[in-house]
């Protein structure tokens, strides 16, 4: 087959990717509020029209067949975005924040998207990662990449304390365990003076092998890039790893077991699936990812306080997973991007964003409970698609 023949089926995907990337770049670059509002309206209109005329479904199928290609395109798009805005602190901070939130939500997705373990304390585990990073950067000389892992391990360890109550309880009862833990964690941070109390803690910026992440990148005389580029790069690497991990788990027999546990515990255990084992796996691995994201977030922001880890923030994490379409990693990436970038850019709604989030989730639950991008049926054989 000629090179052109091989490229042809990929062409629509490339066109869409270029289009979306351009759109996001314009959206991030525009300053005027009316311009942003118009752009958002246009974007929403385009998506609705695509959905109406079946273009979106065809796109989805085309991408579904070439997953790796889509992954590559998205990574490229983020790189292009970063290069384009290499001087702009604010935009890069937003990009890095989206990346970090996607990592955390991937963890949450493992928990209740796949295995059905409710976790309403996402922000608390995120906070465990943040505080681990704060304490370790201040008081020890542990290499900072190890600290990232330590943040994840710490969150997983703290989470495993909750394992017994979470696993013994079901449904609403297990929701209360994590909700109570989320509140407990924030109150604990506020009253604990060694962890800074309500004022919070300062966190050192990342430093890998002498490379200071919090200095602007200077190359030669006249090139200077924002220091957030560092965090975008590290975040992107972690995101690719986390994403690959979650996707592999989803497709493997582990994912099959997790799905079985979520859909029907009784039937799953009749078929000899060890329910406890898979719930524990999902809960611990999920918390690890959340804590990892937290540690990176803390080092990027340089300052953390208990108010970052409220029950409301946990709710936002849960809403992201739900909005995106439970169990679909792509969906939550899209949802995170929307939920973080839109309020940041549209200053007029900044004050009202919690209200709008809440109303939006209510509407989604009422009219499109499967989320923006519903999880497709599992492909059991390569190339096999359900009719």
């Amino acid at each position: 087959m000629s090179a052109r023949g091989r490229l042809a089926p990929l062409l629509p995907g490339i066109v869409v990717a270029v289009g979306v990337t351009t759109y996001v770049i314009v959206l991030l670059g525009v300053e005027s509020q009316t311009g942003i509002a118009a752009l958002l309206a246009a974007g929403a209109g385009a998506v609705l029209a695509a959905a109406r005329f079946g273009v979106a479904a065809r796109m989805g199928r085309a991408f579904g067949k070439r997953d790796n290609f889509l992954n590559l395109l998205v990574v490229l798009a983020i790189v292009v975005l970063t290069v384009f805005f290499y001087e702009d602190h604010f935009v890069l901070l937003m990009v890095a924040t989206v990346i970090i939130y996607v990592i955390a939500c991937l963890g949450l997705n493992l928990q209740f998207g796949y295995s059905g373990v409710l976790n309403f304390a996402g922000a608390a585990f995120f906070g465990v990662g943040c505080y681990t990073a704060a304490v370790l950067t201040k008081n020890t000389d542990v290499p900072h990449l190890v600290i990232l892992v330590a943040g994840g391990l710490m969150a997983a360890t703290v989470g495993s304390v909750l394992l017994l109550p979470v696993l013994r309880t079901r449904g609403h009862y297990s929701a209360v365990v994590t909700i109570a833990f989320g509140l407990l964690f924030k109150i604990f941070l506020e009253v604990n003076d060694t962890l800074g109390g309500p004022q919070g803690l300062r966190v050192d910026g990342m430093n890998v092998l002498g490379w200071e992440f919090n200095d602007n990148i200077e190359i030669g005389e006249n090139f200077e890039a924002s220091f957030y580029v560092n965090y975008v790069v590290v975040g992107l690497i972690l995101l690719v790893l986390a994403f690959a991990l979650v996707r592999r788990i989803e497709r493997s027999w582990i994912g099959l077991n997790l799905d079985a546990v979520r859909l029907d515990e009784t039937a799953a255990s009749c078929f000899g699936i060890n329910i406890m084992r898979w719930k524990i796996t999902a809960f611990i691995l999920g918390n690890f990812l959340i804590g990892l994201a937290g540690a990176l977030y803390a080092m990027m922001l340089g300052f953390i306080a208990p108010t970052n880890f409220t029950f409301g923030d946990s709710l936002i994490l849960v809403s992201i997973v739900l909005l995106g379409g439970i169990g679909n990693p792509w969906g939550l990436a899209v949802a995170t991007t929307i939920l973080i970038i839109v309020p940041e850019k549209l200053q007029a709604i900044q004050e009202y964003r919690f209200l709008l989030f809440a109303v939006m989730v209510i509407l989604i639950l009422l009219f499109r409970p499967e989320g923006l991008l519903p999880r497709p049926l599992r492909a059991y054989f390569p190339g096999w698609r359900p009719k």
Partner: protein
Amino acid sequence: MDGLGEQRIRLGYAQAERHVRPGTDPGRPGTGPAARWSTASSVEFRTRKAHSMDVGLFVQYVMNGLMLGVMYALVAVGFTLFFGVMNIINFSHGDVLMVGAFVGLATYLGVSSIGVENPWGQLAAAMIVAASAMALMGVAVAKYLVLPLKNAPPLNTLLITLMLGTALHEAVRLFYPRGANPQRFPSLLPTDAYSFGNFTLRIDSVILLGTGLLAIVGIHLLINRTKLGLAMRAVAQDEDTAKTMGIDFDRIVLITFAIGSALAAFTGILHGLYYSEVNFAMGLLLGVIGFSSAIVGGLGNIYGAIIGGFLFAALQTLGVVAMPFASAYKDVFAFGVIILIMAWRPTGLISEKISERV
């Protein structure tokens, strides 16, 4: 969402104030119970005073704990009511309570501006308006948010009510005049107080305690002794059978939501009267405490809710008394114990009588 911490701290202050408020000033000679013992020898005086202080403080703690317990039990009974009928968690309950308190406050301001001076009249107006407004809202919530999701996974109902709660408290924060700040709630009850040593019995507390208990008993009688209650229990037990017996399922759900939300408004006003303050963030913590209480007691069981409510209050009070060096940790302690209880009794202290159908 930042308000939660402030709310907790404020609750703490309000309680601290109550401890200080007792009418006698220990520093002033000749007043209070100490004067009665002034003829006794100084040694005996000192020991007896120390002794009486302990008892007085103890009774004060018990009284405060009871007040908190009634408040929590009322919230928990609300959760139980919703759960009993539809097996759903209405997580907006705490925020409906807060909105009820604000409606009550607004009504009070309204009626006093048109010249109603009598505090009982003001209180009655506030209660009636708040309860009916919340009952209407409850009906709307049930009709447009809860019933449409009847066949959806329970997580969706939990989330939609959580989000409704968020929307409610954000709306109050943004649209009530200066809603982001705590609002002073008027004291409409008589404020007489009787001192017994270090214990001060305030009449308003007694009235609040009594009304709260009466409300719980009322709900209990409603569920167990009336035809409506019978219908509610029937619906809870088996929806389809209840329908074939001629019970209008939707109507029962709407009525339950009306009653539950009116109860929330009532609790909110009680809360406002006790703390002399309401703020937009109070619903979340109260909601979570009420929910935990209902769960710990065992969902769908009114006794469980009452036990859970008093248990949580007792844990908080115990946290203050037993660990005076770390009283700031009282909520950490209380929530920690709740998690432990959940690990020990996964379906609550009084568990639901269910058998799993496969």
